[in-house]
């Protein structure tokens, strides 16, 4: 959270076309306090509270971006991002094409993402697969403070529309050294966060933390390689494929509902490029095809250590 705040602050200091807009991002500093202090520093023309209108936020941002601004728009919660899909699909991702290169849309949409904070209904959804199916946009999924900062700076600077999915569950949960200096992480990047040789576990966003916990619990029973997808589109496929080729076994962890989630796309690619290396079917550990339950049950919905380890056992014993 502080990492994101810092990235915003530094980019705004550096480039005065960068502006922030969204609901409650100004004086209030955002409902997650991500934009804390920025309104005070940059004023009402650069950190802008908007009316309560998600279509307005994204579509007005498209206009701002066309005309030379670099809007960093915020949608307050993942569940409210769906009204934005139309403008992303029919306009943001096409303006470059439609104007035959004359205009482009360098906007960043920040989406606090996923569950696990015991919030109200519609505040805990994982919606990345809607975005990754939209041509012309990029989808970025940081998993912790360090990479969040570098990826956000790259996203803001990227000339194309970027959807930046912030795992809200770890806004405060992960403590990590984040360098003061500015640095970027390219928007085509997956990281092997732990090397291993028996099985590859792939995840992104908040799931990386859970995966690490799960693997820790295995106490070295298997040699697990963990791959963190920092960008979903474009995807650093090579890292994924290389890892699966090496281990021959794979578990994918996704918080979103199972059917047509991003895990399916990964399996399709593994099938296309590493089928012969597979020694077991790739296993998905995912949310279910139901609305995210209210807090009393949401922890049964979100992939947890037990389910991940069961899947690892399954692929290992196949």
């Amino acid at each position, binding site marked *: 959270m502080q990492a994101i705040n810092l990235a915003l602050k530094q980019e705004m200091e550096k480039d005065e076309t960068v502006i922030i807009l969204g*609901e*409650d991002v*100004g*004086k*209030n*500093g955002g*409902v997650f306090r991500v934009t804390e202090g920025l309104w005070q520093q940059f004023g009402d023309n650069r950190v802008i*509270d*908007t*009316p*309560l*209108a*998600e*279509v*307005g936020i994204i579509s007005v941002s498209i206009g701002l971006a066309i005309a030379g601004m670099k809007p960093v728009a915020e949608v307050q919660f993942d*569940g*409210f991002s769906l*009204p934005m899909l139309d403008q992303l699909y029919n306009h943001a991702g096409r303006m470059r094409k439609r104007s035959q290169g004359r205009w482009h849309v360098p906007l960043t949409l920040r989406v606090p993402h996923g569950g696990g904070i*015991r*919030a*109200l*209904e*519609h*505040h805990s959804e994982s919606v990345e697969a809607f975005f990754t199916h939209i041509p012309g946009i990029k989808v970025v999924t940081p998993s912790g403070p360090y990479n969040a900062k570098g990826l956000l700076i790259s996203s803001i600077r990227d000339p194309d529309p970027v959807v930046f999915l912030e795992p809200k569950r770890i806004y405060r949960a992960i403590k990590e050294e984040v360098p003061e200096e500015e640095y970027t992480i390219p928007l085509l990047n997956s990281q092997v966060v732990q090397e291993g040789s028996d099985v590859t576990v792939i995840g992104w966003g908040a799931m990386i933390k859970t995966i690490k916990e799960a693997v820790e619990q295995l106490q070295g029973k298997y040699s697990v390689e963990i791959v963190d997808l920092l960008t979903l589109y474009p995807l650093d496929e090579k890292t994924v494929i290389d890892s699966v080729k090496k281990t021959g076994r794979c578990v994918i962890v996704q918080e979103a509902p*199972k*059917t047509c989630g991003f895990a399916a796309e990964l399996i399709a690619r593994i099938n296309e490029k590493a089928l012969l290396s597979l020694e077991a079917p790739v296993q998905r550990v995912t949310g*279910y*095809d*139901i*609305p995210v*339950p*209210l*807090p*009393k*049950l*949401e922890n*049964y*919905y979100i992939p947890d250590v037990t389910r991940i380890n069961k899947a690892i056992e399954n692929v290992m014993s196949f």
Partner: protein
Amino acid sequence: MPKREVKPKLEMFQILNEDGKIVNTREMPQLKNEDIKRMYELMVLSRVFDDVALKLQREGRILTYASLLGQEASQIGSVLALQKDDWIVPSFRENGVFITLGFPMEGLYQYWAGDERGMKILEGRNALPVAIPVGTQVPHAVGIAWAMKLQGRKNVVVTYFGDGATSKGDFHEGMNFAGVFKVPCVFICQNNQWAISVPRSRQTASETLAQKAFAYGFDGILVDGNDVFAVFKVTKDAVEKARAGKGPTFIECYTYRMENHTTADDWKRYRDPREVEEWKKKDPIDRLKKYMEGEGIWSEDYEKEVWDSAKAKVNEAVKKFESVPPLMPLDMFEYVYAELPPELEEQRKDFE
């Protein structure tokens, strides 16, 4: 420039002023003493419910909660103008509405504690569940009202939402359908001046919210939302008009959110305490109390009785809420489809 602009002016409708005086006798609805007492008792009950909710939240027994403090007149006054089988399409701040409808308060606590069973819709009541995505419920109300019309029923739909909701496309598209198909729907906008930290002036440049109705070809009314008589009267008129087939009405209840947006919020970050103080003077319950006192239908004893009874009811509800058996994890697969599709059957099995 020639006269080619529109700038009409909307006045605020009031019956009972801040001192508890009737300022508009002609419009004062005919209410029996019991009716007035009922209004008062429900407003007090809602306030006690709300107060305890905040307490339960601080103690971690319920989760994020949205207080209705200050908006009791808007909620109770309007619901009381309805018939039993009329429809209610609420937003998320309408605990006072649910209480007036007779929803068990333990269910409400349960819901705010993150247990979906709490939103079980009371049999015999035509209400939709809490809608969190702002403004998105407005067109549902329009659809239901349209169904009433198509089915030749005489029921009316009332939907609740805030000032922030008027900025959403869903509100616009729904309002526009309502005008075109002249459906029996009453739109109640509780303009409590804030959408979390965003003040009304940043929400829209429109001088009043009520005037937005003009864009859809039907009446917009601005009413003092802390005046339970005015809210009741205006809603009653609108509901009767709708029932008579004369189409929708938009009512802006001018009120104030006295509390934080939700318990996750801290209003001191963005608003002036003096503003809150000013609004305290307009409190809807105080105002009605003064009126009743003037009319001789209020006494210290009565007051005590009302609050004691409210507290007892709420305590009872808290007890019931706390003794509810826990949800079963497998329950999450319930009520998704009429019949579980094989995918979900499999996922459910997987879960076990």
